[in-house]
């Protein structure tokens, strides 16, 4: 048996899904968090049944890729749990009526039930059950209230056989149901609502946005640097260095296996950044350079997601985003890209047209550095002076704007208008927030760390076989002539395909000037997506558009790298 969770965007389907199955999924306070389906299992009596968390949709007439996923899933379900936002019954019931017209058993979960009390909304549950002809269970997914009743009533889900209506008839029916079951008392605005009004106002909203983004950036750096300086780096230097030094001596301080495991000694000592062995840089880069920033970035991103600020940012950014051929909602995938480009490209599914998805995905993969890459830029370029970090970011931002303006003209089609629901502000649920942070950190550990180790192994083997030297000689005209980097820097570009953090690390032993390091970082950020992003671009855009996108990246990286080399 297969149970589908279907409902409007941002009504709490993912939270109910986690409650039912124990499977943790990313939940946030903005419409469109879930863009593909997630599968989980729960016990129902003696049976083990499949539960699917479906992307939110307002109607069964899809307007974007995420909604199409929802519609395709519907035909495969045996029972539909229609998750409804109780504070917004009227709009949610339209989808409910559409579901009741299908030949599938439905049960309604009236979620956010606690909010109806705060908002002075009174819903006559018995009456609603009678009219709809299906079980209606009030729930508060975030606290777990009503979930047990929902499970107990699952077998009572029925298909009432409502005749098929036209759109106008359905809206009329919704109106009449609301008349009969809902009473709303007048009440005053809360402080959260006043803040909500201020944050979409062009002037106060602009100030709030600048404060939030600048503050977020500073806090990410503060926490990231703090974790490195006080926790991770001391752990490595005090505990791990003695072990490696001893091991290095035992292995005779050089040789093929020594270099693979411990790396080359720098001035007779193990150097976590420059040695490039599996046990030195292979562990130091992911754990002491990147992980601290993964934690700090996703902590702040999670807060922004859970409060409900992101859709407001989308409203404010709409005018700017139109300049680059997108509308305001594209800011959400873009922000996710600062963590990792893979979920960012997936999140472009919330955009309406293929054209927008192509532009958004291309801009993200070229100009938005992921957290791992940024951590290495902070660590290596920041050491030479923060003005060079500013040059890297400034260049990438300029590329984002200029390339966006070009793509807007070059890719035919019109920009769809922004149309989004703005959820109320909520205080972030700290437990769920920490769980989400853990999921993302864990994701980094299991997906990125093996790749980082693999990349370092590959580097050592390629060096040993002399392949890198051959490539370096072959590409020297471009790398040295155009970009002004030593010819060995091409190895970083090659490894950038596996992991960009390791690639930036490879620039460290080359004794570059600060300017060269900035050029190298920019080119690495833009040049080519890492393999994980490459795969997701291929899946989401199709082979032709992915190749176009990759072509744009290579061309743009060489042009911008060349120009930057002339300036610096």
């Amino acid at each position, binding site marked *: 048996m297969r149970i589908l969770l279907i409902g409007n965007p941002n009504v709490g389907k993912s939270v109910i899904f986690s409650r039912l199955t124990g499977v943790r999924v990313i939940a946030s306070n903005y419409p469109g968090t879930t863009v593909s389906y997630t599968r989980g299992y729960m016990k129902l009596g003696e049976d083990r049944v499949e539960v699917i968390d479906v992307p939110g949709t307002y109607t069964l007439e899809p*307007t974007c890729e995420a909604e199409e996923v929802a519609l395709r899933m519907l035909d495969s379900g045996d029972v539909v749990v229609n998750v409804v936002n109780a504070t*917004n019954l009227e*709009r949610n019931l339209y989808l409910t009526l559409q579901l009741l017209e299908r030949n599938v058993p439905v049960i309604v979960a009236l979620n956010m039930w606690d909010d109806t009390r705060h908002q002075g909304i009174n819903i006559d549950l018995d009456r609603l059950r009678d009219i709809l002809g299906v079980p209606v269970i009030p729930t508060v997914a975030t606290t777990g209230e009503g979930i047990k009743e929902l499970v107990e009533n699952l077998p009572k889900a029925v298909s009432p056989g409502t005749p098929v209506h036209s759109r106008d008839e359905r809206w009329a029916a919704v109106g009449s149901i609301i008349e009969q079951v809902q009473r709303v008392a007048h009440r005053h605005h809360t402080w959260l609502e006043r803040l909500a009004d201020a944050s979409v106002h*062009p002037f106060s909203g602009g100030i709030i946005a600048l404060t939030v983004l600048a503050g977020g950036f500073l806090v990410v750096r503060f926490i990231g640097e703090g974790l490195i300086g006080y926790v991770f780096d001391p752990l490595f230097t005090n505990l791990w260095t003695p072990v490696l030094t001893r091991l290095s001596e035992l292995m005779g301080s050089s040789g093929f296996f020594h270099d693979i495991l411990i790396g080359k000694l720098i001035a007779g000592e193990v150097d976590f950044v420059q040695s490039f062995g599996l046990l030195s840089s292979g562990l130091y880069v992911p754990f002491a350079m990147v992980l601290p920033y993964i934690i700090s970035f996703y902590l702040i991103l999670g807060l922004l997601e859970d409060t409900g600020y992101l859709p407001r940012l989308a409203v*404010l950014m709409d005018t700017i985003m139109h300049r680059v051929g997108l509308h305001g909602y594209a800011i959400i995938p873009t922000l996710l890209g600062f963590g990792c480009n893979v979920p960012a490209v997936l999140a472009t599914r919330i955009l309406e047209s293929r054209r927008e998805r192509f532009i958004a995905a291309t801009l993200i993969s070229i100009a938005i550095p992921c957290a791992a890459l940024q951590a290495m830029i902070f660590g290596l370029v920041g050491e030479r002076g923060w003005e060079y970090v500013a040059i890297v970011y400034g260049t990438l931002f300029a590329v984002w704007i200029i390339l966006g303006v070009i793509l807007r003209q070059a890719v035919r089609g019109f920009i769809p208008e922004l*149309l*989004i*629901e703005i959820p109320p502000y909520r205080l972030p649920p700290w437990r769920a927030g920490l769980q989400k942070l853990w999921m993302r950190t864990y994701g980094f550990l299991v997906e990125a760390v093996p790749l980082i180790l693999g990349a370092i192994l590959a580097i050592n083997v390629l060096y040993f076989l002399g392949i890198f030297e051959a490539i370096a000689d072959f590409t020297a005209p471009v790398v040295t002539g155009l970009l002004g980097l030593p010819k060995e820097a091409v190895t970083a570009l090659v490894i950038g395909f596996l992991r960009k953090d390791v690639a930036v690390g490879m620039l460290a032993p080359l004794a570059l000037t600060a300017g060269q390091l900035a050029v190298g970082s920019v080119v690495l950020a833009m040049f080519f997506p890492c393999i994980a992003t490459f795969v997701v671009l291929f899946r989401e855009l199709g082979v032709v558009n992915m190749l176009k996108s990759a072509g744009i990246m290579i061309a743009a990286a060489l042009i911008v790298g060349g120009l930057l080399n002339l300036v610096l």
Partner: protein
Amino acid sequence: MQIKTLRDLKSGEGGRIARIDGGHGMVSRLAALGIRPGRRITKLSFGFMRGPVTIEVDRTQVAIGFGMAKRIVVEVQDTAQ
């Protein structure tokens, strides 16, 4: 009684949607969010530099792109009445 587009409404001003001058796609996207003829809406904030207009409908806030806001026609009760 005045007829205005949503774009021309002042912040804080409300009215009843008279009609939506758009194609089928636009009408159904708006309807899905509860924005359809006959509904009462209140404008919350204006679109600066052709930015989106924010409205409240059924206690929900919705942001509507400038181009769409021009095509939503609203009946406003005269304040003099």
